[in-house]
């Protein structure tokens, strides 16, 4: 759709809204989400602008984050976030996708709703509770298995995060699997295909894009997760040595924002740096969600699927 026709339809819309008060109110409510998103972008970026100007790329690539010496190099934090998120996805993507296939194609029909409901309940558990469980049960377990002083490590955070994004991945890829047209499956069945052959040759090719979208959404959720991660990641603003050491504490971006906002003086460089990190987070999740949306819209059978 080009800009001109878009403006034209917008104009037509406004002419209609003028004569229809009910429709006007409804339209106002519907466009609320757009207004909020714009405001969110404007305000968070505005508060971060001081840091963008004064720190520039240092905000992402600077090596040292030390509040006491007014150093705000975000690299250790960004690295911590990426480490924890990739750890979580490595665990949850295979688990989640296999689970969604199993539920949709193999599990007896009567068991589907109960199992789906349990996974939905898993999704609704608040992140403080996950953090609480991680800090009180999982961290000591990790500490005793690997003989560490403290179980608050990147591994612990990855595990908790993996549990938290699992329902997202199962839910979205499950939706796309159930959107595969029945005719196709029945056609394959009529040709004598076995259940596994149907899954491999009909279901998987059709729901591939939806699965990719589910992974992207999982990534978006994981990178933005704050409270649970903060409670189990150990919160040390340093790149672990060696960098792939999952048994070291990390300080993900979201955790830093949550921990330091309370102490940062309004208008200070620290305050602005936290908002700067926040706006980067906002942009990343925005882009990832938009890509997931586009993938789903362009997918062969997933057009009607809601994320």
């Amino acid at each position, binding site marked *: 759709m080009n800009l001109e*026709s*878009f403006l034209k339809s*917008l104009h037509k*819309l406004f002419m209609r809204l003028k004569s229809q008060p009910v429709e006007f109110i*409804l339209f106002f*409510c519907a*466009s*609320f*989400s*757009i207004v*909020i*998103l714009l*405001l*969110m972008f404007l*305000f*968070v970026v*505005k*508060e971060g602008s001081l840091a963008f100007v004064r720190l520039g790329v240092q905000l992402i690539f600077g090596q040292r984050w030390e509040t006491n010496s007014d150093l705000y190099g975000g690299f250790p934090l960004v690295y911590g976030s990426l480490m924890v998120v990739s750890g979580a996805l490595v665990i949850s993507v295979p*688990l989640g996708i*296999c*689970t969604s296939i*199993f*539920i949709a194609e*193999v*599990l007896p029909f009567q068991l589907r709703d109960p199992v789906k*409901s*349990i*996974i*939905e*309940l*898993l999704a609704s*558990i*608040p*992140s*403080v*509770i996950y953090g*609480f469980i991680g800090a*009180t049960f999982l961290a000591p377990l990790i500490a005793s298995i690997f003989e560490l002083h403290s179980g608050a490590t990147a591994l612990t955070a990855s595990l908790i995060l993996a549990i938290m994004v*699992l329902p997202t991945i199962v839910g979205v890829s499950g939706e796309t699997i159930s959107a595969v047209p029945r005719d196709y499956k029945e056609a394959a069945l009529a040709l004598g295909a076995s*259940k*596994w052959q149907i899954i491999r040759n009909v279901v998987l090719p059709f729901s591939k894009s939806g699965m990719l979208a589910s992974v992207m*959404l999982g990534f*978006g959720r994981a990178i*933005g997760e*704050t*409270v649970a991660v*903060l*409670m189990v990641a150990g919160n040390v603003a340093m790149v672990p040595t060696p960098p792939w050491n999952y048994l070291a504490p990390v300080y993900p971006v979201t955790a830093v*924002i*949550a921990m330091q*906002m309370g102490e940062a003086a309004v208008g200070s460089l620290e305050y602005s740096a936290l*908002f700067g990190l926040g706006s980067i*987070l*906002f942009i990343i*999740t*925005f882009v990832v*969600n938009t890509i997931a*949306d586009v993938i789903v819209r362009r997918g062969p059978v997933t057009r009607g699927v*809601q*994320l």
Partner: protein
Amino acid sequence: MSGQTGERVIFAILGVPMLICMLIFSWILSLLLTGIGSVRWELLTVSALQGGMFEMIVGTIYLLLGATAIAGPVGILAAIYLVEYAPSRGLTRIIDQAINNLAGVPSIVIGLFGYTFFCRHLRLGVSLTAGWLTLALMMLPIIIRGSEEALRMVPASFKEAALALGATRWKAISSTTLPAAAPGVVTSVILGIARVAGETAAILFTSCVLITRGLPRSPLEPVMALSYNLFVKIVALGTPAQKVFGVALVLFMIVTSLSLSAILLRIHYRKGQPWLMIR
């Protein structure tokens, strides 16, 4: 025959991840349930000043009621617009996209926004009102999505019958489509509440305090909330798990019973209204 055995093996392998999911859930449940014995239930009605959690529970309920009062009507009306009115596909797509994006904004970023916009720009301060508005932003996408789905499931013939009898468009929708979709709409609102009931990051800077004297007397005062309390006690104060178990358990039970009732309601009304089974 060997093909079948091979297939069984594949399905067994596929089934393991699902079992792991179920195990995780039962593990979490069992961890929380083991704490039930040590919780002193009389603390539910004791003031926070005496070590109870009365104000936190009521504070959490205050936050949820206010946020629902804001996000509920806005969300439902937005869904009605998107399903029944939205004229141009282009515009609807952009709104759809915005709703999806809003749903994906990390709660900490919503918290940052709530702080700069509601608390500072609108001068609401750290207050109940700021918390309502911030949480409403998180509920909105869930309510819109769920209500939209519920509205779409109502056959157009309902509305058309009313239109044929001479009803105006709004009258037709509000007297036929909306009542038929009501259970689904209510479910989406409950799911929205469940989503934010345990939310911490969004109210961290916008509306909570660890301890104050009594309940907020006006919407411009800060509140105590279960999730915030649990978070601060563990992270900042390093309180041993035993002492905060009660708070964690109460919060878990509130959230789980909310989402469980939403799920059961959905299953129930899909059975009760046969046209909803056809999608």
